[in-house]
């Protein structure tokens, strides 16, 4: 009988950064598809984390997310990134309707000393899979987005981070009196990512 002990894989800072930035790319695409920010026909189906996921084929979105991930990877490797927030706003009035909050806790020892950690890749994939499922099932409780919407991504960084010329300081685009739903989290032993969605109370629900 084969042994069932979980084999642990060595995870370095760079590897963990790649996992987290890749996760964010797929999560952002999944959110854009599930929330209907872009039309369904602009998405293509791919297999990732053992699930069928959808990726946008819009060149603008692709380049935007690619450029974003490049900068986020840089900040993650430096241990300067605290949070990533994907904000969905109405196109007409820029009113913030939803905030998908990805909080990141970084193991400072790994960043400073360059040590590595051990965790099974399968375990990490399983945790990410759970989050993707929750994002897909979020349409059951999130209010419908009737208006045309746009999205933006905010990065919460340390104060000593040099702002690149393609980035600028911004307000946090908060929602007043939001409803909050905490989703699962995943941990690579170097970066721990907690997911939370806060959304504006639907007027019908308030009534």
């Amino acid at each position, binding site marked *: 009988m084969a042994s069932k002990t979980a084999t642990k894989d060595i995870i370095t800072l760079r590897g963990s950064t790649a996992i987290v930035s890749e996760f964010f790319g797929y999560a952002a695409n999944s959110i854009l598809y599930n929330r209907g920010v872009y039309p369904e026909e602009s998405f293509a189906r791919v297999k990732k984390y053992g699930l069928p996921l959808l990726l946008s084929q819009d060149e*603008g*979105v692709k*380049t*935007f997310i690619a*450029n*974003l991930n490049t*900068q986020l990877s840089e900040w993650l490797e430096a241990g300067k990134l*605290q*949070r990533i*927030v994907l904000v969905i706003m109405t196109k007409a009035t820029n009113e913030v309707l939803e*905030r998908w*909050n990805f*909080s990141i806790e970084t193991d400072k020892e790994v960043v400073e000393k360059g040590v590595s950690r051990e965790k099974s890749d399968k375990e990490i994939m399983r945790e990410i899979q759970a989050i993707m499922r929750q994002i897909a099932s979020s349409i059951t409780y999130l209010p419908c987005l009737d208006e045309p919407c*746009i*999205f*933006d*991504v*905010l*990065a*919460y*960084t*340390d*104060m000593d*981070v040099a*702002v690149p*010329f*393609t*980035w*600028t*300081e*911004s*307000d*946090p*685009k*908060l*929602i007043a009196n*939001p409803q*909050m739903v*905490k989703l699962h989290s995943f941990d690579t032993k170097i970066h721990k990512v907690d997911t*939370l969605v*806060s959304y504006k109370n639907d007027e019908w629900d308030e009534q």
Partner: protein
Amino acid sequence: MIVRTPPPKKRRSEATESPNSDGRFIIFEDLPEPQPEPEPSHQHSDQMLCTYQCRQLVKADFLDALSSAEKQSQDYKSKVETMNDDLHRSEAEKMKFRDQLLYAEQELAAAKGREQALQDQLLKEIHESQERLRKQIHIHSELEVKFRKEIDLRKNAESLLSAAEQKASLLEGKLSHVSESIEREKNRLQKELTLLKEESKHSMSRISADLEMMECKASNSEKEAAVLKEQLENLQTKLNECLHEKNEVEKKLSTSTYQEFSSDDSILVKHLREELRNYESEVHEARKLKASHEDVELLREKLLEEKGRRERAEAEALKLLEAQINGKKLEDELSSWKSTLKEIPGVTSAADIPLKFEALQKEVLEGMMKMGEVTARLKQVEVALDVAENARQNVETKAALTNEKVELLKLELKRTELMLSSTTEERDRLKIIIDELKQQKNVEAGSAMTDGKVKELEASLSMKEDLIKKLESSILEQKDVNARQHNEMKLLNERLSNESRRIKSLEREDDRLRSEIAILESKLGHGDFSSASTKVLRMVNSLAVDSDAKKTIEALQNELQQTKDKLQAIEELKKQSGDAGTLVDSYISGKVVQLKEQIATLEKREERYKAVFADRISVFRRACCELFGYKIVMDDHQRSDGIPVTRFTLQSIYAQSDDEKLQFEYESGNTKILGNNYTQQSDISHQVEIFIRKLNSIPAFTANLTVESFNKRTLS
């Protein structure tokens, strides 16, 4: 009452004592012969009488003795009967006592059994209580572990609290600094507001005038460009027609005979060459038209730039309005703050507010902490009260149960003791009866039997007494054990109550910590962050901007392609016009004359436009110089990376030397200042830092510099 001992017989008197007084029947004749006395015979008759009388006396005595013996025998018979009756009765009583003894033994056995059962029950209860105690001790140990964990959590929370308090104190210090800086900035902003207002008014008027001018120029240039385009197109069509006719003529010429070649050919060739030159000149003029067209397009671009500037100016005006509104809000806030300052006791200036605020906050925090402590203590006391009441109720029920048990045991003990006393009394009575019977010694068989049985009964009674004593001692021991166990249970109950109180307090702390964690998580989820340690960034080129930029890029690319196509067409035309030139018809020459006339008029017009443009430009430059106080020199440069840029050199009319020049570089809507010796001076660099770097306003910088130069000039 039956007399057991017959009364003593009464003895007769001594005188009448007869020889058979001892009860023997003595025949008188058997009487011992008296001693013959040496008495005379006369006494012989007397003796015969005496014997008869003696015999009569003896008979009487004998009869009396008989009767008395008979009476005695009857008495003895009656006594024996009574004794027999007594015996029977005693036997019956003995049987009764035996039955009672047996009953007592049975009851003793039952009491023993009950005691055993009670002991077993007590043992069971003790075992159960021990097991419960063990479980509770186990639970207690688990609770202790949880308690230690909670203590650790609490320590962590306390450390977090202390860190948060330190942060809060830091924040409060920063608040005070920020409030001071806010006041300073308010004053500065107010000054800047007034300056900005004036500048904006000037700039708005300037920009509107410039815009109108540029619009007029643009419309004029557009019209001219349209006209020129039409002319170009006409020329092109005419050229095409000329070429077509040329080709036809060539064909005709080729079909005609070679002989017709005469000296006129050379003249023709000369004419053709001249016309070629003319065509070339026309092409050159067409190129010039194209250059002017390009100039028109440049003007159009400048128009667009001016429009952009106008939009920026409008945006700045909007910002100004917003700044005004903010300034009004700040003024309102200032006034409200001042009014609150007056209302707040103990505060004389704005600097006192943060201190007062801190003091009030501290008081509020202390009050809240005290309230929290008091409520916690109240809750603890309530919990302790509840626990004590529960414990008391438990103890009371247990005490009642034990009391009931003890009373039951006591009752049973009393019952057994009573039984014992009754059996001992009966035994004593039986003993006395037996002793009496023994003393008489007449009824041997029954008394011997009863003695044996009584001895057996006595032996069994003594055994029972011993057993009872042992039971009593064991009961006392059990009582002592029970009392000790009760005490232990009480102690354990007290410990339990203490632990349960501790558990409740820990649970309350746990709830409080969980609520704090929920609050912090909600803050995190809400998006709150500490501005001291975190900043929020977003990409400049968001998708909307990218799409707009892409659209403009695509439009520009399309225009480029169109202009390239036009250039290619014109070059082809030039080639075609260069290849042609052998034979010209009079129709073609007429057309050429017309084209020349048109070209002349276009040239004149162009010269006129140039003159007008030069005049207007000079007027514009002079006006700019007089209005804004700067001589502006514009020239084109190419940067090291090959990008063409426009450089503006500004010299103030109030400059005291030729070195006081400002240089700006303009590229696709962005103007930036270039550094030189003049701008590196301390006061100029300071102004550059404030107006250009921080406020991003070149007009403000130039206006300020103009005012300062004017002041220097006038003062000097």
